[in-house]
């Protein structure tokens, strides 16, 4: 077990190193000059050249790369060109809204998707099953920005039930900040519930057709116990996998929803950093996201051990 985790951690470092290199290359392949952007439309080419020199962007690419890798290995991801702050500090500032937004969204998605998925599988072919499948397809097909805009307009602007956007001001406490995440969480929860619902239903359908379920029923075991204790436990592995991936996607990819609701999270930061050509922030964010993916995959694999004693590493 310890050996397995050690091997996975070594693999994780290799992945991060590869991501680090690819991130460096990709952001520099993209055209666009951060210095010209920072100085504004009336700045001359000479002004931009002077600023590039000050930012160290005029150094040879190889020198920049070696400096980046060397610093990254020591935990220094450089300094944001735009914010004049260490990248780690910029990313840390975005962690709270993104993590809580992801957690709330996942919770909402699970609350919607799991019981409906289980019930739909149990009542396969019923009206509720058909309705669940259709609704899930609809939720997955409608772009999250549209759902976001509609809910924002009607629930926040017109009815005033939620804050419209942002993450509070200087005097906003933690609980109040969480309120700002409710509506975007509902949007993301609805969108992501579709995938979890379909996986739950499909996985439960497989298990409910197994011989041991028939055996349990023939022994006179109650339906609730059959479905929730025997079937669900065995159907859990694919569900956990998709939940883990959904969480990783939420942390790294709530870009549109964060943009619509102006949540100062990771997704919003990455979009802004790309538009501003803030190379160190883009690189840092990619490294963090890659690390999260690897880590969540590892945690998901370890969770298999808990839910299924037959799994051995």
């Amino acid at each position: 077990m310890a050996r397995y985790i050690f091997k996975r951690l070594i693999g994780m470092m290799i992945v991060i190193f590869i991501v680090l290199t690819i991130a460096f290359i990709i952001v520099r392949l993209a055209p666009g000059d951060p210095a010209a952007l920072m100085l504004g439309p009336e700045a001359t080419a000479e002004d931009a050249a002077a600023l590039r020199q000050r930012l160290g962007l005029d150094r040879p690419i190889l020198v920049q790369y070696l400096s980046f890798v060397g610093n990254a290995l020591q935990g220094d991801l450089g300094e944001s060109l735009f914010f004049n702050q260490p990248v780690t500090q910029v990313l840390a500032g975005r962690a709270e809204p993104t993590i809580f937004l992801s957690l709330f969204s996942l919770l909402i998605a699970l609350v919607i998707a799991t019981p409906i998925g289980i019930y739909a599988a149990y009542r396969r072919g019923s009206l509720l099953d058909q309705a669940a499948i259709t609704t899930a397809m609809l939720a997955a097909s409608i772009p999250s920005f549209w759902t976001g805009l509609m809910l924002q307009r009607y629930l926040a602007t017109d009815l005033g039930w939620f804050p419209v956007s942002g993450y509070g001001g200087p005097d906003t406490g933690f609980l109040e900040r969480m309120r700002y995440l409710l509506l975007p969480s509902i949007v993301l929860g609805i969108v992501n519930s579709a995938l979890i619902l379909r996986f739950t239903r499909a996985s439960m359908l497989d298990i409910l057709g197994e011989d041991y379920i028939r055996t349990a029923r023939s022994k006179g075991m109650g339906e609730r116990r059959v479905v929730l204790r025997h079937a669900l436990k065995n159907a859990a592995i694919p569900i956990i996998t998709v939940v883990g991936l959904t969480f990783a996607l939420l942390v790294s990819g709530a870009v549109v929803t964060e943009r619509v609701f102006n949540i100062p999270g990771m997704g919003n930061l990455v979009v802004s950093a790309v538009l501003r050509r803030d190379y160190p922030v883009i690189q840092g964010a990619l490294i963090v996201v890659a690390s999260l993916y690897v880590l969540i995959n590892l945690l998901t694999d370890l969770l298999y051990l808990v839910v299924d004693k037959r799994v051995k590493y």
Partner: protein
Amino acid sequence: MKPRLPKRASLLAAFLAGTALAGPLAAQTTLDVAIIGEADTFDPMMSTKDVVSIVTQHFVETLYTFDSGWNVAPLLATDLPQISDDGLTYTIGIREGVTFHDGSSMDAKDVVASLERWLEVASRGKLVADKVASVEATGDYEVTITLTEAYSPLLSLLAFSNSAAAIYPEEIIGETIDPVIGTGPYKIAEHVPDQYLQLVRFDDYSSRSEEPDGAAGARKQTVDEIRFVPVPDPNTRVEGLLSGQFDFADGLPAESYGRLESSDVADPMLLQPFGWPVFALNHKDGLLADKTIRKALQAALPMDDMLFAAFGDDKFFLTDGPLYPEGWAWRNDAGVELFNQNDQARAAELLKEAGYDGTPLRILTSRQYEFHFKMAEVARMALEAAGFTVQMDVVDWATLGERRNDPALWDIYISHSPFLPEPSLTDMYSETSRLGWSNPEKDKILAQFTSETDPDKRKELYTQLQGQVFEDVGFIKIGAFNALSGLAEGLTGVTETPWPFFWNAEPAE
């Protein structure tokens, strides 16, 4: 009209919405202002971006500013300068009793150090740097600028909040300035990147005593606190304004006008005209170095159609040829008969005369500003009808910013600008700009225009310069467009300007 909620639903709403329901106006002394994005810097010398000007003018001040008629007016200076008859010496009195946010007093030494830095690092400062012989403190509260040649736009440059000649304490002057310390009516309390910039009233602010007039005159600290909230998505700015979350929202989409007009929470504020879209032409390299091809381009463009496609409703644009709008001192009709010809047959003749060989005309544009792209699309159709081969290079704004610095990569790039109080504040007339526009007659007029100090003679020279813009096709103004902002119902004292400011602004009771 907002729907009424049952009592239980109202309580739930109060819980869910929290402070958002209480609204900014409940605090009475705080203004929440939604701006289009984060300011790149709080040092206005270092940027020509409008969003930087909008934010920084609240805490950093200049010697001069503009009144509502875009006339230069004193701010940190006691009065307009004494200018020698030859136009070479500007003697500027500095106000006594002005305090910086760090508690130190402003004097001539601070002004000299600030102006020297401005001449060295600011884009607009560099425009005049080679004409400045010296900047000296000629008294504790007097500064003298000596020029090597007369340069009449100097005062406008000193007054502009964009690439501004900001006045800082001498002690903090350096390559970069952090933290920024100014003399403005508000000072920075807290900045959370991409979330908010909190400005609070500066208790030791020394206001001018004249009646407020544009950005000139008294700057009253009518609210205790101003919060600038960067909201990049325009629709989110609209919803925030309509919900009462923001007291003012800048840069709103034209489509939201109707909702704002019918709202009982907010009102539209239409700045008309705001500015002008422009086709910047490459005179250094490529097809448009040939004047006959430039004339063909000018003949082919259908300005009405381009503006309609870009803005959709004539409430938001005006097909107007002169380079300055109605009511401005610089307005004249020289050359405007060449505007909006929409004559593709004439363009085809000119192309034939020029021996055009089908080389693609490269239009460099971006969808960052959707109206740029829409104008380019309509232009492409008209140009193709005239016989041009058109290559649309649609890139993001960052790429456009880089590519336009290389004359080998474009023939036209699309941009826009607010109407600036002094023509020389835009560098498009200058041979040294990216456009590289030069001909002996235009260069001579421009040199006379920038050195002439008599206002009437300057107007006459500008008429000639505008004539050159059309006759030699220096660049192509497409028309004029309006900008939509919105403000909370009952908010007063906000001046209509491309760079809105909120001293003197009073929320509803």
